[in-house]
């Protein structure tokens, strides 16, 4: 099932176009990087792909059909700041099971310790929280994962731990991964193809 963005354009209200005519395709199992200067709409484009935002122009299709709006979303987005993506008044286990019931082996693959499940979000570090956000997005129905600066705030060891686990799952499930990052060396290490997003495209 291919994820396809065709002639996508977006702007807020009547403001300037953030981007127009963006075309993007990714196949199952493929790992593609999106790069571009800051302020050019990489995050907005990611939000459109994941269905958080509707494009003003153009279409996003999954396997040729519009992406469904109800139920578990097959295109999942993981944000840069996990502390902003988790309900501060829920214990970690509730956030973790928001979309599906992850099995123990997956938690272990991501280095999530059982004892963390009963903690509050403010008792865990950014790297620990981000592991939960990734696992939460990896339900069996996830076809594509969008990592928007997913490990930018993390140290190199935690970054390598999380990416190794994600790559293994992507391979096993034929899941596509979109990597948005400013770190050229990370993109080079992970991706088989890189797309540049800029206004002139």
């Amino acid at each position, binding site marked *: 099932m291919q994820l396809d963005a065709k002639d996508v354009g977006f702007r807020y209200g009547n403001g300037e176009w953030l981007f127009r005519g963006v075309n993007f395709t990714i196949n199952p199992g493929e790992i593609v990087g999106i790069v571009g*200067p800051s302020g050019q709409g990489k995050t907005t484009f990611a939000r459109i792909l994941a269905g958080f935002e509707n494009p003003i122009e153009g279409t996003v299709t999954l396997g040729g059909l519009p992406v469904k709006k109800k139920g578990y979303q097959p295109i999942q987005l993981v944000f840069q700041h996990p502390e902003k993506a988790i309900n501060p008044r829920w214990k970690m286990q509730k956030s973790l099971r928001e979309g599906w019931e992850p099995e123990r082996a997956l938690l272990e693959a991501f280095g999530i310790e059982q004892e963390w499940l009963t903690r509050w979000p403010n008792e865990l*570090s950014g790297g620990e929280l981000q592991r939960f956000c990734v696992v939460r997005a990896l339900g069996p129905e996830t076809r594509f994962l969008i990592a928007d600066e997913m490990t930018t705030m993390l140290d190199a*060891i935690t970054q390598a731990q999380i990416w190794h686990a994600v790559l293994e799952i992507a391979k096993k499930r034929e899941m596509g991964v979109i990597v948005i990052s400013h770190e050229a060396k990370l993109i080079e290490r992970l991706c088989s193809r890189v797309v540049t997003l800029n206004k002139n495209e």
Partner: protein
Amino acid sequence: MSILEVKNLSVSFKQYTTGMKQKELQVISDLNVNLEAGKILAVVGASGSGKSLLAHAILGVLPSNAKISGSMTYAGEELTYSRKIALRGKEIALVPQSVNYLDPLMKVGKQVRTSVRSGDPARKQKEAFERYHLTQKVEELYPFQLSGGMARRTLLSTAVVSGAKVIIADEPTPGLDPAVMKEALRHFRELADSGCAVMLITHDIDSALSIADEIAVFYAGTTVEIAPVADFTGKGEALRHPYSKALWQALPQNEFIPLPGTQPHASSLPPGCLFEPRCPWATAACRKGRPDMRELREGTVRCIHAT
């Protein structure tokens, strides 16, 4: 010449658990750093290793339930709480980590101008904006209208127009594209070369290496190693501490090998060396107490086995 010296700094937080019960969380233990005029010290380490807390301790902005011990001196004199208040924003400036530190109700051009202490505020602000590729339109915007990278560049401008002698930059680069990041890093180097002391807190070892003189590696609230940048090379053979070596090898441009496990939480610190539970070199002796910082080959290390 040392401008700011932090010796055996420990910070703990008093927290209520249930009812009236309290517990002490030791978040920084025996930490040592030394900032020198004309030098850049980069501080690297995992989140939760105490990097930002060190910055907040120097500026005197820790929350009221924090307890501090150890000593801090600025220009040879003790850095007391009232001196911190007098100096911050003037001689000691912070580039904060989060873009949430901008005033949401003030246009960003004005925010930068209020930080200028000598000279023409409007001109200095314009120069800083030009330097960081912020167009004139940006001056009139409110923080919520900025992208992450633009907000970051505004924060940088605020600190560089202040004319401070010590600049503490807390993760100033994430979310910047390479061109702007290079410019920002080059500017830190220029500030140091003109006599400032710069402490660059970052987890981006690569950018730290490109401009810093020394690198301090933090783990679980303490300094495990302070090494000249030249030691970060090859497979990390020249590095002293096993954690520094692991951090170096985990970089995507190196081996990308993750060391298993996580940094201990402040509520359950191991009794001996803080790295012992994850350390490939650990022996029974490591569990017997915290190792002291010792000098080794042009640097310092906190490990009994390091050679």
